């Protein structure tokens, strides 16, 4: 059915070796898809010339949505006409990337008919990426996806597709229900997700514990990371068991505790929980003996992003501990206030983390009506340059503060 494959001696090299080969995937697709055939040719050319052949995408999309499609055109449409358009569609993955085969197959069927037959499972933000189709296919694809209950993900200056770790579905350490929360937030912010109206993108990522298996603290404007407030649950017998089975509890566990709050006398393990930093290390190493406490919730952090252009950021603490239970009103109210402020005062292409740095965390907190707490800082200021906003006036006799 598809055209004969172009000669791709360089790419063919990448069919060898033990790691799954993306070239094989393109060739698999190329059995049926002329788009995949042209992609092979174009990619081989890039390998020879050491340069890409894609142009800036124009604005393409589906009716009523501002995001979800990345427009893409190649710069040699005469040579590679089948991929003269090669737009990707971002499809909002199910929380935790769990699938049943029938659902996956239904997507494959649509994509076989209307696209390149190539995908990314998944994109870096978490979406199902349908890799390459033509403008005129966008509406039909959306209509068919809709029939099998898949909606588009985010792109542009909107809420980006939230993602989460598998959490309670498969992990003993989940301190809140990441998948449920991810789903609930995705649903609550459908409008913000599909219709870019922010200064720039806004990403949510949900991790069930400080191991942060979705890299939330590094890659989300709002990072929701599970934690606990009370003491680590310990099964003393299981600790003894680990020791008996050869674990060197002093060097493997105690010496690696960043809080230096553990003590092992060769028989009993003691944790001074009021100093514990909830780093997870001891729990990670002795999953049968130690577990997060019972009073569980999440730490909310704000602002991580890649470096363009002010330098990369990790998220920083906004709420040290919050219970994560529907309807999450306290948190979503804060989110509303953050967005309101950022939409009003943020510059174009200024992520929320950059915005906070520009206006100052103290001012930001005042504006969103959150009290400052020491958990928000790694340490208090080192410089003495405090902007006091008020001062005493002579006649006050020191008794009253006056606004300037």
């Amino acid at each position, binding site marked *: 059915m598809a055209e004969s494959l172009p000669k791709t001696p360089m790419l063919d090299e990448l069919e060898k070796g033990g790691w799954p080969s993306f070239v094989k995937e393109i060739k698999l697709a190329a059995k049926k898809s002329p788009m995949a055939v042209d992609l092979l040719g174009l990619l081989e050319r890039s390998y020879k010339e050491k340069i890409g052949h894609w142009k800036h995408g124009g604005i393409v999309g589906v009716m009523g949505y501002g995001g979800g499609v990345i427009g893409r055109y190649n710069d040699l449409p005469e040579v590679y006409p089948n991929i003269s358009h090669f737009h990707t569609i971002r499809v909002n993955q199910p929380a935790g990337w769990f699938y049943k085969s029938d659902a996956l197959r239904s997507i494959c069927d649509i994509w076989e008919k209307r696209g390149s037959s190539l995908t990314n499972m998944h994109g870096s933000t978490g979406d199902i990426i349908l890799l390459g189709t033509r403008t005129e296919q966008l509406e039909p694809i959306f209509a068919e996806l809709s029939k099998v209950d898949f909606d588009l993900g985010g792109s542009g200056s909107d809420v980006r597709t939230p993602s989460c770790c598998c959490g309670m579905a498969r992990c003993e350490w989940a301190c809140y229900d990441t998948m449920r929360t991810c789903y609930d937030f995705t649903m609550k912010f459908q409008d913000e997700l599909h219709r870019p109206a922010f200064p720039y993108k806004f990403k949510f990522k949900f991790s069930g514990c400080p191991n942060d298996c979705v890299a939330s603290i*590094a890659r989300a404007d709002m990072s929701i990371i599970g934690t606990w407030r009370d003491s680590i649950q310990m099964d003393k017998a299981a600790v003894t068991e680990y020791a008996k089975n050869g674990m060197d509890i002093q060097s493997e566990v105690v010496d690696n505790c960043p809080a230096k709050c553990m003590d092992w006398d060769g028989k009993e393990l003691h944790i001074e929980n009021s100093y514990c930093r909830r780093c997870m290390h001891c729990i990670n190493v002795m999953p049968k003996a130690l577990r997060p406490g019972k009073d569980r919730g999440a730490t909310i952090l704000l602002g991580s992003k890649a470096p363009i252009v002010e330098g990369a950021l990790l998220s920083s603490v906004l709420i040290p501990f919050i219970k994560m239970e529907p309807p999450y009103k306290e948190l979503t109210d804060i989110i509303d206030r953050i967005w309101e402020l950022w939409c009003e005062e943020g510059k174009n292409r200024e992520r929320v983390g950059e915005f906070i740095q520009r206006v100052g965390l103290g001012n930001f907190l005042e504006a969103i009506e959150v009290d400052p707490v020491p958990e928000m800082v790694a340490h208090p200021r080192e410089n003495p340059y405090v902007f006091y906003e008020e001062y005493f006036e002579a006649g006050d006799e020191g008794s009253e503060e006056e606004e300037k």
Partner: protein
Amino acid sequence: MTDERRTDYGPPHYERFLPPIIKENYGKWKYHEVLKPGVMVHVSESGAHLYSVRAASSRLLSIEKIRAYCDLADKYCGGYLRFTSRHNVEFLLSDAKNIDPLIADLKKLGHPVGGLQNSISAIVHTQGWIHCHSAATDASGVVKAVMDDLLEYFTEMKLPGKLRIALACCLNMCGAVHCSDIAILGIHRRPPRVDHENLHKMCEIPNVSASCPTAAIRPAMVGGKQSVEVLEERCMFCANCFTVCPSMPLADPLNDGVSIWVGGKVSNARHEPMFSKLAIPFLPNNPPRWPEVTEAIRNLVELWAKNARKYERMGEWIERIGWPKFFRMSGIEFRKEHIDDFKHAGLTFKRSTHLTF
């Protein structure tokens, strides 16, 4: 938009895709154990055992491959499977007997099993020359070459701790390489070549000027056309101008290539999360197998594997021994490029006498 048009319905509810054993034990998992490379069991308060088998995936998947995964899921675990945050595929089994046959089938399909615990998992990566206009290198090709070389570290668990590699094909860092044990980052090294012919048609000149963080761009008349000029000595190749304006391409076969970064991490385990730091400023794009890159990475992995203490991530190890020692041990030449000269540069200077000799 018609009234009937269905929008904003969001993704399918995840519960539809959870195997019964997970639905029953949701939130009740008690502990887990890694049984062998790529295979772990989660044990529930209820006593139930869930076996997960993790297989490598190339992330760029044809629908044929997805269907093959589905076939395996149907065969061994009621059709249920998932993907991980690093793009591996996982099969969720209730019956331990199915583990080995599944692994055998996966191997046949070309998908090694592994990536758990103290191993190197799949490389988080991006589009590269497959799809993006910004790329300074390819993504999938470099990843394939590197992982072919490091396969043993995926299929075995012989490292001191986890090692996470990521790749981004340009400074936008969609691969979020800024917090990886080892990061591969495509970089441009030639200032934008302005397309004076078309710039005024495609771009707003004030926006273009404003996009440059170093103020290297200023409006100029060129050949009678409104355009911009670039003060080349001020350019540090961030490509922000190009993101804003297609008439400012930076891609260039002679100067594009790859830089290598080390010591980042994301988890809060032991040390707080850390950014990756520059190790090798430049390696050439040498398709199809980027031998300079694969060699550099293997050297870094092995240096770390040999010298780090148990559980010590790359960055924790380097922090313990100090960067001078890292440079001495790795044989990487320290150059002006390694010294930060951006906004907070002063905070990266060594402000103590804690030195090794």
